[in-house]
């Protein structure tokens, strides 16, 4: 399977609100502490947005809304990524892109 990467998705999401996942160094602490226990949350999801993998992000719509916004990942993040605000911004994007809201 091949995928075309690009900055367009992250730019489109970023136009709707703050999205600072570029600082993520992929350490996985956020996923390890996440009470939801969903593999997509939140590291893989943010990585997919940064890489511009829109189809994967759209396919992961349910995990995006499953996030509790509890911020346990964010206070544990060594790179200081604003993960919950990223998730909220991504919800704004999917509200438009997937649900036409």
């Amino acid at each position, binding site marked *: 399977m091949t995928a075309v990467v690009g900055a367009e998705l992250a730019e489109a999401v970023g136009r709707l*609100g703050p999205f600072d996942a570029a600082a993520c160094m992929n350490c996985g602490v956020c996923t390890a502490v996440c009470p939801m226990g969903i593999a997509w949350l939140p590291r893989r999801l943010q990585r997919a947005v940064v890489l511009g993998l829109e189809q994967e992000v759209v396919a992961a719509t349910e995990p995006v*809304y499953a996030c509790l916004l509890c911020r346990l990942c964010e206070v544990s993040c060594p790179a200081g990524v604003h993960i919950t605000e990223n998730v909220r911004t991504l919800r704004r994007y999917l509200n438009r892109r997937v649900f036409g809201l």
Partner: protein
Amino acid sequence: MTLPIGPVIGILADNLRLRGSVLPIPARRSTSWARQLGLPVGGPTVLYSGQMVQLIPYIEAMVAIEERLGGSPLARLAPLGRRLNRVVSLVPLMARPPGRAVAEYDRILVDVATLLSRAGVAFGALYADDLYTGALAHDLGADEAVAVQARRIQQVLRRYKVREVITVDPHTTHMLRTVFPRILPDFAVAVRSYLEVLAERPLAVPAPLPGVRTLHDACVFARYESVVEEPRRLLAQTGLRVLEPEAAGRLTECCGGPAESLFPARARAIAGQRVAQLRRAAPDAITMCPLCLVNLRRAADGALGLEDISSVLRRATGG
């Protein structure tokens, strides 16, 4: 067992835009606590509920319906439900909480108001103009509907010349103190939770309370609004022995409440995990958010005693 995400967010956002709340409830219900106490209308300082506590019995009733719908073919009718809801508000038709539940949650607001009065704080209430802040819609990314609501609330606070708002729950505190000033740079109202206000002065406790409790921190208080020390300072004066659970303060674990509207079954599983952690610390726990209280209570099913901090503090200060 999830609900159709788009239509559910659509219904909640439509309700906020059209009716001023994600789950519109009758004004006689949302204002009964203030009427019971005969609080003055408005004033420079108001106790602002944001209808969050009053919404809990309705959320509970809706979640029970959602849990049944989530696994049934009826969930496919959600888009139709959204269209119908634009014309007729479905919440009063679907969610009919028992009067006992309504009275129990009203009691939290009465207790908070009583505690503030006992502490010598002068305040009024906004009755039917005490509007829901849109916290759930904000979480779901329905920012346009939230912006409309923020402007409505700003106009209300200006009309009553309110300078300081005292909040009850963490979600309303976060919306008014942190989110609204981002949406409206001229939103110039001081916002503090009642726990912060009470913690500034000594608590008058006539007779220490006996017993042991553990404390469940609300994520939004602990990690969004840095309200961690205040509840502990207050509880330390009650006489109760308060034991910390394994995840406490800034590292507290979620009650699952935020997943209720779209993933009720998952919300219950997370609440169950948290109940187990709390039970390992003590047989009874204290909460400080009405969403945490209802979610943990449902998951505990009687296996863990749960009480809002306002009830504990009221008992400690003379019943």
